[in-house]
């Protein structure tokens, strides 16, 4: 069982100074393009200087109230001054006397500053980070987590939840980026390969897992969540560290981090298991960072889909897509966080489309119409016709960027080594699609009848009765999957079948049951009536000179009349419809 001291020991041999042993041309000499252009020492813009000083002081003094707005300002200043160039690096800060090298009070500020600095390089700098920069960023995260985890009492630091989430998110993202970078040996130079070979411990999967598990353990977050969902007070089990907001939220975000990491490595069971104390279908105090929510639902939905729990996947995606529709305005500003959210939204729509093809069922109206609007309707049609290329394309777009947990064999890596994890997951998915190929054809035949002898239907599809029977059994088997019904653990569930079209076999006759959904008029009319009321209300407030405004005492209001007329139409349609449908049912039963 790892404890905090072991964590410290592992990294003791990597003090920050060692970074200088890695060769990169000292600033001022050599090629600027290697490190990305940046402002030379003497010209950091005044506003930026002021910002950095203010920020440094806020961290020094533990000024909790200013930090959130300072964090937001970082993005604003990035847009203004550092759109394609890196922020001043720490050397520049020393040079400009913004930070004193000897003053240990600012150590933690520098760690936080570097976190933002490297994150910006990953996101914005053309060509991405250099290998030394990747290493330095890793050491910086080690220092940060070391500081947080090996303290004897909770550190006196409070950062906004958004930042805490982004630290964990970025930490895993940089690991992901490095793993993929490391696997692409094709275009690397000899010295680069040597550098990678010599540093097996950097961005090692065990270190990343260790950080996440330590944060989870230190904060007692699992116990806290257990108590929280049963209505108790989490503070009673939190322990000294867990009560502190920094640790609690880092613990929670680490659970999501583990969900993501396990999914990237193909372990879907473990991915859902780590969330077993989080009730996904409930709003809670823990779920206030939208980016975190969206990432959670994306990975959970994807894991369910790979586990063939289509109903659960569809429910998961629908829930979050409805939420995103309602809060669309929040994600309009252009920054890289919103870009990621928007991309994940697109991916989730695609995954939802795949699940709906494999397991048609009713979903929320709003989501249904969004699916129709986007080009997904065409893709869904192609997938229903068993065009495997379309499945492959959709999966490729929507899946996470899978990783291998181990470095490539540097001397003998096969050509597309970095693509192998993805190829493996794609193969598993396509095997499943292959096994289900006959099902959509069956479904369309089944929809046409209420009863039918087996041999007749087999003949329609050009199959022997034996093969046809197998196909029917397969249909039943594949449409009956585990669906979550209750409890917090997402892994739980019972076998259920929510298929629109269902059947059973009696001897050699098939009896088919279909689900007919009546047209929904009520919702539409109610919405329109409310809208009309509103329009009328605003109209009555408009004063036109010389005329008596509507809704004034003298003239009777128009809207209530219209409203009651619409209401009357509505009720008569609904009544008529019900009668129509039951007649239709009788007619169908009479046709065998």
């Amino acid at each position, binding site marked *: *069982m790892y404890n905090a001291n072991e964590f410290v020991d592992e990294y003791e041999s990597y003090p920050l100074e060692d970074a200088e042993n890695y060769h990169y041309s000292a600033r001022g000499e050599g090629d600027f393009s290697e490190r990305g252009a940046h402002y030379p020492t003497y010209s950091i813009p005044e506003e930026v200087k002021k910002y950095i000083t203010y920020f440094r002081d806020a961290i020094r003094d533990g000024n909790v109230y200013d930090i959130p707005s300072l964090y937001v300002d970082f993005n604003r200043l990035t847009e203004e001054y550092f759109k394609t160039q890196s922020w001043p690096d720490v050397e520049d800060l020393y040079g400009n006397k913004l930070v004193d090298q000897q003053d240990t009070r600012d150590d933690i500020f520098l760690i936080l500053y570097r976190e933002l600095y490297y994150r910006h390089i990953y996101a914005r700098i053309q060509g991405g980070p250099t290998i030394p920069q990747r290493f330095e960023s890793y050491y910086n995260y080690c220092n940060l987590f070391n500081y947080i985890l090996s303290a004897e009492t909770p550190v006196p630091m409070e950062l906004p939840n958004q930042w805490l989430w982004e630290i964990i998110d970025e930490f895993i993202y940089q690991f992901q980026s490095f793993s993929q970078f490391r696997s692409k040996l094709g275009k690397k130079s000899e010295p680069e390969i040597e550098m990678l070979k010599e540093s097996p411990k950097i961005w090692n999967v*065990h270190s990343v897992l260790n950080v996440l598990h330590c944060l989870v353990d230190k904060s007692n977050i699992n116990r806290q969540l257990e108590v929280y969902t049963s209505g108790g007070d989490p503070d009673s089990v939190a322990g000294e560290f867990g009560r502190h907001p920094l640790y609690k939220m880092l613990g929670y975000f680490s659970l999501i981090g583990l969900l993501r990491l396990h999914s990237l490595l193909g372990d879907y*069971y473990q991915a859902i298991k780590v969330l077993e104390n989080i009730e996904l279908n409930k709003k809670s105090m823990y779920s206030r960072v939208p980016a975190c929510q969206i990432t959670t639902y994306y990975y959970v939905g994807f894991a369910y889909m790979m586990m063939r729990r289509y109903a659960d996947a569809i429910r998961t995606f629908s829930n979050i897509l409805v939420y995103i529709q309602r809060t669309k305005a929040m994600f309009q500003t252009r920054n890289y966080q919103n870009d990621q959210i928007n991309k994940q939204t697109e991916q989730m729509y695609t995954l939802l489309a795949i699940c709906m093809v494999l397991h048609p069922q009713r979903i929320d109206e709003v989501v249904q119409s969004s699916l129709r609007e986007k080009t997904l309707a065409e893709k869904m049609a192609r997938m229903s016709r068993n065009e495997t290329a379309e499945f492959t394309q959709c999966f490729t777009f929507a899946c996470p960027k899978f990783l291998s947990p181990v470095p490539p064999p540097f001397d003998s890596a096969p050509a597309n080594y970095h693509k192998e994890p993805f190829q493996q997951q794609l193969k598993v998915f396509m095997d499943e699609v292959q096994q289900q190929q006959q099902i959509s054809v069956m479904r369309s035949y089944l929809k046409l009848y209420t009863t039918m002898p087996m041999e007749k239907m087999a003949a329609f599809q050009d199959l022997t009765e034996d093969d046809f029977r*197998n196909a029917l059994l*397969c249909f039943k088997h594949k449409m009956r999957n585990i669906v979550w019904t209750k409890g917090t653990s997402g892994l739980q569930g019972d076998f259920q079948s929510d298929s629109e079209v269902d059947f059973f076999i009696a001897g050699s006759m098939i009896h088919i049951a279909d689900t007919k959904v*009546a047209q929904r008029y009520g919702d539409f009319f*109610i919405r329109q009536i409310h809208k009309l009321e509103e329009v009328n209300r605003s109209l009555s407030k408009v004063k036109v000179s010389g005329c008596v405004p509507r809704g004034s005492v003298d003239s009777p209001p128009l809207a209530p009349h219209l409203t009651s007329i619409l209401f009357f139409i509505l009720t008569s349609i609904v009544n008529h419809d019900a009668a129509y449908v039951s007649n239709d049912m009788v007619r*169908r039963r009479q046709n065998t």
Partner: protein
Amino acid sequence: MAEQAETMRSTVASMLRGIERYNPENISTLERYVELQARENTYDLEANLALLKLYQFNPGTYQNTVACQILMKALTNLPHTDFVLCKCLLGQEQMEDSNVKRIMYLHDLLEMCQFRTFWNEKDQYANLTTNIKDFSDSIRKYVCHVITITYQYIEKQVLSQLLGNVDEAALQAWMSKYGWKVDEDGNVFIANQEDTVKTKNITEKIDFDSVAGIMAACR
């Protein structure tokens, strides 16, 4: 002797907590546990997945025979999707192994419910199946599950075929296990499906609350 696997279960469970599950020193214990499961017909999905994950993190330790055993055990837990979960943790190179490929073929047959083919060809896979205690019976359990969800009544002959052409005594044993009785026509009555499988008409229900506001405004 079935207790051996059960006592191991709690030991193994504690090995899988937290960061310990990534400790490569657990590999030999987990391998022994797989062997026990195969011998005594017990099953522990989490332990098996943890072992496959350790193989993934430490490719040099991969044991093909153990991996094949895990896959075969996963087949015995159909209709659960354990086999798919295991596949996701293997690498492409490992999937190229001839035994793994053969097991995947069996999996395809079973998932697509091609039971007659499965029973016909099963003997060719004796080298894989003999190590797994009660393998055939576990598959028959799966077949019965599929029959239960599909049939109201089934011809006795068809039933026997799907179960692998078992003799009369065995057939009677399976039928009594699931409470299936033979009716007058010689068919085996499975379950009354008419209650669960029937046409659903989803009509719109407009409740009072949604129109209450409108009705109030109509005054």
